[in-house]
């Protein structure tokens, strides 16, 4: 393209320098400072103590569970959506709840799972005693899955939508059972959508802090909760940055793992 407009490009480049590169550099720099601003590696040493390692593993475990449940609900939903008439309208209806402020949706569950909420009312009707559902692992995972479902459905829907249906007919004509067709044809062809879905679920799930505070009642501590705690409560920016460094490293690992192959003629 002959067209060039260098001065107009400058604000964008400045943005990259100031808000993409500089923040990562600053996080790295602060991770090596102690509470007095002295240069030290003590934060890294602390990170490898059992308390922080346990927290990292728990955070990982929760993110895995959340991603797993989000996937097993979202995949069939996306698949069935592609089979409906007016599929784009239905997709739109799935997306609308994701546009409602996250905080409001989380707040709703304080009422729903509360001691006098509808879930407990149903439990009572069924003859169970009312229990505190709020502030449990279950409520935390449920709300997180609820929030991530639309974000997982969109990439899977797009992948399924792009797939050539004659491949499925071919597979059936050749005598494959529906299960084999799914396992050998449909799923491999939509794996890229699943990967992007996992990416948009797993990374945020590691860093949720508002849901843990409101729904899990500080019982669940994720990497995100720990960073927020160190920065805004303990005022220990150094330790907070160190945890952030590990979160960034995990993020890059997930991105490599779920990297979509755009080039190449496999598909």
């Amino acid at each position, binding site marked *: 393209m002959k*067209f*060039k*407009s*260098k001065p*107009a*490009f400058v*604000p*964008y480049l400045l*943005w990259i320098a*100031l*808000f*993409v590169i500089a*923040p*990562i550099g*600053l*996080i790295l720099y602060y991770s090596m400072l102690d509470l007095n601003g002295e240069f030290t590696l003590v934060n890294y040493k602390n990170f490898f103590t059992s308390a922080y390692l346990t927290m990292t593993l728990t955070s990982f475990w929760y993110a895995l569970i959340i991603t797993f449940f989000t996937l097993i609900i979202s995949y069939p*939903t996306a698949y069935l*959506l592609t*089979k*409906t008439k007016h599929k784009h309208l239905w997709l739109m*209806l*799935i997306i*609308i*709840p994701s*546009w*409602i*402020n*996250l*905080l*409001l949706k*989380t*707040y*709703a569950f*304080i*009422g*729903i799972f*509360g001691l*006098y*909420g509808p879930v407990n009312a149903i439990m009572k009707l069924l003859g169970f005693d009312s229990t505190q559902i709020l502030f449990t692992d279950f409520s935390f995972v449920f709300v997180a899955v609820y929030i991530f*479902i*639309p974000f997982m459905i969109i990439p899977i829907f797009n992948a399924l939508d792009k797939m050539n*249906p004659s491949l499925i007919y071919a597979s059936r004509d050749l005598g494959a059972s529906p299960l084999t067709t799914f396992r050998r044809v449909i799923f491999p062809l939509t794996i890229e959508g699943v990967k992007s879905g996992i*990416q948009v679920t797993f*990374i*945020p799930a*590691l*860093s949720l802090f508002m849901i843990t*505070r*409101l729904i899990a009642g500080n019982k669940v501590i994720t990497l*995100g909760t720990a*960073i927020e705690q160190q*920065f*805004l409560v303990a005022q220990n*920016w150094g330790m907070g*940055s160190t945890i*952030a460094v590990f*979160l*960034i490293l995990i*993020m890059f690992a997930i*991105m490599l793992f779920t990297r979509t192959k755009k080039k190449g003629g496999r598909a």
Partner: protein
Amino acid sequence: MRSQLTTKAKVFLAIVFVILYAPIFYLIFYSFNSGGSMGSFEGFTLEHYQAVFDDNRLLVILINTVIVALLSALIATIIGTLGAIGIVSLKDSKIRNTVLSLNNILIVSPDVVIGASFLILFTMIGVKLGFTSVLISHIAFSIPIVVLMVLPKILEMNTNLIDAALDLGANRRDVLTRVMIPYIKPGILAGFFMAVTYSLDDFAVTFFVTGNGFSTLSVEIYSMARAGISLTVNAISGLVFIVTVGIVVMYYFITMRSKKTEGSTQ
């Protein structure tokens, strides 16, 4: 090819839809409750909506939220669109890919990390926490999404159009305002809408970079929710739902219209 959905499939989809919408309608339902809780419905009232409009502090927060969303989206759209044009004009594909990867870092970064790093940045360069820091942060995290919405539109544009305009004596500004921008307008609008939604929905980043005395809706709901159930929050959610559906419908019609005009020109 259209296979009919089985009853089982319909039931499954229905359950997913019910679960997705139930919490939202639950909130709105109790916003009309004259009792003080979300447990038992005592009678119909509009007092909680009245409370929202009577609370000056809350109104200021609502206005702040909207101003930050519109202003940050506008600035992010301008910088992002020019950025996307700049990226396309980069000749070296290695540099171009590097810039694109840098562009995507903020999209996949966890909110908490973005918030914490911006907090360090603002403290270091001496930006006072409050309106300015929140606005700048929202611009910063909206730019990459605008770029991603505009980029495909520029890439599908026929470069001969630009060459023709240049051959016919148009200067660079004319090419930009008369040829490129009208062509990529759907992408720009989509980017703007996404930026508005990102801004309205953001909690974590704002929570880090907002000081005392400045608050957005998300941050305010967080502190209200931590204090316990308050039906004023339910009334806010009713209002937010109406506005959101309004934005979605508007967005839907705009994309439909641009699809139609695209179809008629082909």
